[in-house]
């Protein structure tokens, strides 16, 4: 269960105040997939940062399984993120100095989780790249990299997946494959996922769809146009 209560966040550009989130409210029950639509600069990324504990809101509460992470120290937030959250980025952001297998190993190791090999192999099989375990990321195509990124986000069995434009850097077909993958591995595992995107191809995944505009959410009907 993820709850955002009355969350506000302002940014300053020079002396001009710019409200990104205003008394923002959101409750995501376990296992739900939420898609956030919004223009660039609408505060989508800020919202993800606040949920993951990377950023702290100016006011309000962010509760993950009942714990208000805004009350935690930076280190505690990092440790929470480490165990409960999986990230998927637009630019994949695999660790270039680690092999595919090691990239998956890293979250497990950070969580002191043994019994790694089996899970890594099965996860790689699940994303369809079991044979690339010992390859370095720069030898993979974009789609392959994002598959690995999805695997990395899930490997340590987090409660919440945060995805920031996961198809934004991929061609149409590859994007669809990733959507398929997310559908398979996230939905079927019953994970909570919040995805930020402006691509309509992804919408089919969602349980609920919101638009973020001037710091507030509006729920959109499934299948309705966004822009």
């Amino acid at each position, binding site marked *: 269960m993820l709850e955002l209560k009355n969350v506000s966040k302002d940014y300053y550009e020079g002396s001009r105040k710019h409200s990104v989130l205003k008394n923002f409210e959101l409750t995501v029950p376990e296992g739900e997939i939420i898609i956030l639509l919004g223009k660039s600069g609408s505060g989508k990324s800020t919202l993800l940062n606040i949920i993951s504990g990377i950023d702290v809101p100016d006011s309000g509460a962010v509760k993950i399984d009942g714990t208000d992470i805004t009350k935690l120290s930076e280190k505690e937030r990092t440790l929470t993120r480490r165990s409960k959250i999986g990230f998927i980025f637009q630019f994949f952001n695999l660790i270039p100095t*680690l092999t595919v297998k090691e990239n998956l190993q890293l979250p497990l190791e950070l969580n002191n989780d043994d019994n790694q090999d089996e899970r890594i192999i099965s996860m790689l099989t699940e994303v369809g790249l079991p044979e690339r375990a010992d390859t370095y990321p720069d030898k993979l195509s974009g789609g392959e990299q994002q598959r690995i990124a999805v695997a990395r986000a899930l490997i340590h069995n987090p409660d919440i997946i945060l995805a920031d434009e996961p198809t934004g850097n991929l061609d149409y077909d590859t994007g669809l494959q990733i959507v398929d993958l997310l559908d398979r591995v996230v939905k079927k595992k019953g994970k909570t996922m919040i995805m930020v995107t402006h691509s309509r191809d992804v919408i089919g995944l969602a349980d609920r769809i919101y638009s973020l505009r001037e710091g507030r959410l509006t729920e959109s009907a499934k299948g309705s146009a966004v822009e």
Partner: protein
Amino acid sequence: MSNLLTRSSLRYLFNHPWQFGLSILGIALGVAIVVSIDIANYSSATAFNLSMNAVAGKSTHQITGTSEGIPDSFYTYLKTVKGTGKIAPVIESYISIPDSNKRVFKLLGVDIFAERPFRDYLSQTDISIDGGLKNFLTKPNSVILSEESLGKLKKYSGDTLNVIVNGKQKILYISGTLKENEQNRSALENLFITDIATAQELTGKGNQIDYIDVIISNDGEEQSLKNLLPEGYQLQKSGSRSETAEQMLEAFNINLTSLSLLALIVGLFLIYNTMTFSVLQRRVLIGTLRSIGVTSNEISGMILREALIMGIIGTLIGFTAAFFISKILLIFISRTINDLYYVVSVREIHISPLIILKGTMLGVFATLLSAVYPSREASGIHPRTAMIRSEQESSLIRRIPRMTVTGIIFMAAGAVILVIPSHNIWLSYFGILPVIIGFALMTPVIIILVEKISSPVYKKFFGITGKMASRSVLQNISRTYIAIAALALAVAATVGVGIMIGSFRSTVINWLEARLNADIFISAPSLISRRNDAVLPEEILQKIKTLDEVNGVNFYRELIQPQDGKEYHIIASGISSKSYSGFQFKEGDPGEVWEKFDNGEVFLSEPFAYRYDLGVGEFINLKTDKGMHDFKVAGIYYDYASDQGLITMKYDQFRKYWNAGGISGISVFVKEGSSIDSVKDKIRELGTDGQQLVVRTYRFLLDSSVEIFDRTFLVAKVLQILSVIVAFIGILSSLMSLQLERKRELGILRANGLLPSQLFKIVTLQTLLMGFTAGILALPLGNALAVILVYIINKRSFGWTMQFQVLPSILIEAMILSIFAALLAGIYPGYKMSKTSPANALREE
């Protein structure tokens, strides 16, 4: 710490071999220089102590007498009347062998019948005097040498040997061999052991011995022995001579060490540079790791561990290199020590645990320290904003005003530390550090200023690519400023040391020209320039005075007076009034000082006054042959002859208090119209009875003095060159990282149609600008360092006032060095960039 993080960071290091290899090389060189200087210093000190211990044997104390020594009869009195137990007479002197590359040996005259408790290497087990004992005792000029020495001289027992003792030629007879063992081999080398009678005859000491070795086991014995000593005698601990020698060398050693530290600082800048770069390069990676849940402590730990690895590898390589470098430095250093301080033959490298500890601390911990700031930077990287490019540049630009102010504060703080009145040299060096840091902090603002000017100039001469080169220095300021600062610091160090040496040299030459205001100079051959212990008989002076061509003479007697564990160098001067102008007074009214001098007051040389904190009108208490006596100080004069300092008094005054006869040196004015060379030859013939006279003309003496000066600073020059090498590695490493970092940017340029040659031009123009900026920065900093070295460090080390003199050539050289180093360092990265396929460069991200 995560195993995978470690693996990741190690792979990063391996993937950037140039960057990290050069950094490790930088640390290694820095450590090597510091450690090798340490080893060289320590080895020469150890060699000296070993030979001192060999001479002192098991004695606990020594009785020293008056300036002439101790009369034989006093020893006999102690032995036969007072029944004093463990005492042994000693005569010590130096011998040089003309046909052995002027090597200097120590002559030790002993009474073997008193030796048993003292020098065990003379005992049965370690020595065999192959049947030659009768000769040793009864045959004139008999000596024993160690097997090693004999081997080197290619002599055997029974051979004869031509030597010079106290300026006189003698033929020695080798009556036996000293069998050394592993422990005392190097100590016994260079030792000529003779019977005390032979020593007296060889050195012409008459019925005097130099001192009496004593073994005392308790305070009661010490006191009762003290009670037997006449006025002017002293009972001092045996180790005190080694201590005196250590004190003498202290300032010399500290200066060498500090020069070596300068190289290390440059090396550390390199680490700082590399680590900062590596952090900047990995911003995205680090940001991702942070997003995944790696804590900031784990990130900074990772960076510090990388530094630790480099520190350890660099230190290990540094130690290995130090072992070889120290052998070379040892040659220079021991030559200087032999020139200036005492006779010692250093043949072995000695390493103490302390040196290893110090080198390791410096190499490893200083590396860690210099990585602290980059590691904090890394840990502060925001998990996701890190992925936004150019953020770091704009953040640095925003910080520039604050950096500049902080820089000024640092420099001011350094200046405050430096002007704190203190004799402590380390404090002075400590003060240099904030100055350097402050300077580094001010580098960005200077870059902005230089760029403002260069940008239009570059555009005008090199077109749009020129302007791009110029702008890129500014655009990448967070990287370029470190490289520029590193190069500037290294160049500044060479400027500082160069100006200091130049100023010192011209000061000394000016002083020599004023002081050496006679035509011919005569002395006994002295083996060490600052220990003029050889004397000429007084009748030589009378003979010279009576020569027709001679217009007047000055003379002096130098005496080294041991007192309370120190050595005072006293110059008893028979100076004529026409040479008064050779003395420049720092304190004391020149109109009055000479009258006071005539009335028994003394002059102190500047280093002496500084060292003992004495001023005009104060008194110095000296141990004389007639007991302790207070001498009033009439003036403080500039003098660069001895870093130990000198006390000058009128010769007649000296003879009232000291018995020592003989003349150490004579200077002669030749009548106008007479040929200096012919007078020189006449004087040379005055030496009778094998007495050798060193007769030199003004020109020759000046030249040879300057030669010794230059030899002394050879080590400094070597160190200077080594720090330039470190600096060059620094700039190379910086530029390499910088250009590799810009791979993508340059790839885009290539994609847009720039030719490889144009790309090369951009890189070259950019490094040219960086070199120029570094040069611009290095000049004021170099001058500041020179001011600190000349007015603070040297003053505090030796008490010397120098005329600050900036040779334009040094500045021009610095500029050329700076630009040349930058250009040279830019060649490889430029070449590499221009050859890179744009596709590859673009693919990097």
